[in-house]
């Protein structure tokens, strides 16, 4: 059946590209999760009326986040070429895509983290402080657990965006399904390869969405 509908698809190539995409997505999601939460926490805590209220710091982080969130990803990759070459030593391959993926996604996720944290009832934070909790306790035992469903649903959306980003990164040489669809599918006029790569990407996206929704609903005890 594969032969009839997808004559040009080579399963081993397709599998290789899929693992590349999964690798890029997994690493960048992990890094984005950590970095985004740190940035989001800083945004939240330095905002007016919060524990570390600090306008200058808030302004700097906020500006950084807004700028990097606003640059279209394809342009961000190009802009970051010198930076990527400096820390990764190359512009080719999956690892070379990671800096751009993380820098593109973390600010986007940081805003979602901030929104999630803002939804926590101020009274709960006050209650923790009234019990004599340190700021670190408030962060680890109140802010993060209480916003966890929002953090997980946020990282789900971000992870799906990141799958899209890896495809774009693929076009300029990072490998993965985007690279396959563009180079072997589009440029060689093999529509079936492009179509098959698309189907695989869709499958990845659906699986991510399913897992994200499942974890969110398990976590949410409200």
């Amino acid at each position, binding site marked *: 059946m594969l032969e009839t509908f997808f004559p040009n698809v080579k399963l081993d190539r397709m599998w290789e590209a899929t693992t590349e995409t999964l690798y890029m997505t997994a690493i960048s999601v992990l890094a984005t999760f950590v970095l985004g939460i740190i940035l989001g926490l800083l945004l939240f805590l330095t905002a007016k009326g919060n524990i570390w209220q600090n306008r200058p710091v808030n302004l700097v982080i906020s500006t950084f986040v807004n700028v990097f969130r606003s640059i279209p990803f394809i342009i961000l990759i190009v802009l970051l070429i010198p930076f990527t070459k400096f820390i990764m030593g190359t512009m080719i391959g999956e690892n070379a895509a990671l800096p751009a993926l993380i820098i593109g996604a973390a600010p986007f996720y940081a805003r979602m983290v901030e929104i999630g944290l803002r939804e926590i*009832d101020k009274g*709960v934070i006050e*209650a923790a*402080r*009234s*019990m004599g*909790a340190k700021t670190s306790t408030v962060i680890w*035992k109140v802010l993060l*657990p209480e916003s966890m469903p929002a953090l997980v649903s946020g990282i789900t959306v971000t992870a799906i965006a990141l799958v899209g980003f890896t495809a774009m990164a693929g076009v300029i040489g990072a490998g993965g399904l985007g690279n396959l669809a563009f180079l072997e599918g589009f440029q060689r006029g093999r529509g079936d390869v492009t179509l098959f790569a698309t189907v695989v990407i869709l499958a990845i996206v659906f699986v991510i969405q399913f897992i994200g929704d499942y974890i969110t609903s398990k*976590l949410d005890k409200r």
Partner: protein
Amino acid sequence: MISIKDVIKTYASRNGDVKAVDKVNLEIEEGEIFGVIGYSGAGKSTLIRMLNGLEIPTEGTINVAGREVSRIKGAELRRARQEISMIFQHFNLLWSRTVAENIAFPLEIAGVAKQEREKKVNELISLVGLDGRGDAYPSQLSGGQKQRVGIARALANNPKVLLCDEATSALDPQTTDSILDLLVDINRRLGLTIVLITHEMHVIRKICHRVAVMEGGKIVESGPVLNVFKNPQQPITKRFVQQVTEPEETKETVEHLLQRYPHGKVVQLTFVGEGAEQPLITNTIRNYPVMVNILQGKITQTQEGAYGTLFIHLDGEEEVSLEAIKYMSSQGVGVEVITNA
């Protein structure tokens, strides 16, 4: 136990400084249930938040359980807060934790070992009457049960003072009463000093020993609850006292009665403490040839004794009626002849 001296709290707002608390002085004794009553915006919420350092006074000093909470910071303030716990109007439980985990939270903060934590949590769950609900999440509980968790959580580190911030204002009357009973029980059993703020005189009446009335950031009146009930001085206090002594419709009823009984007198009797328990009406009828018609009445229990009002219609010869009234006054009962206004 608690001493508040010349405390002022001002907030900067767009229209200049706002004095939320204005020169407040209070002494609260150990083991006492002290109530602060006022309408919203009276400054009572700011006042109670200064007792555990959630707000810092602009001027003045606050001492609680041997610590000057208005001055201390950092680790010392955090230690002090473990001895001055607080419950809230909206409970403020962590929804991500079960009942048992919520109660364990302050113990985790205090660094209590896991085994000891579990033991203490079980004790507290029984104390507040939530046996078997330890594994439930707050979303599965009713409002009253949530407040019980709040109380258990507040008691976890054996505090010396419990601050109640409108703790029953979000509850229905029946649940309010059961929570108030629990607070009295804790006060008696553990000797805990309780400070509560509320806008409901019912709460003051039911559990407080002493009360302070707040208006516009100032304490306008304070004293033992029964005294304040018996003899309210300020108009605002009178309004609060009316909340529990007079049913809403009293005024209309009295006017109606005056029209209905052109003869005789409509008399309002006010009983306080022991007076509320003696058979005054029986004695009056036995000793004086007057007709007594009971129109309306209410007796209110406070922590220090009963307080009640009774409206009667007294008919008979003018002189005998006056003597009967004189007799009733001599029995330690407040007597007021109601006339057409």
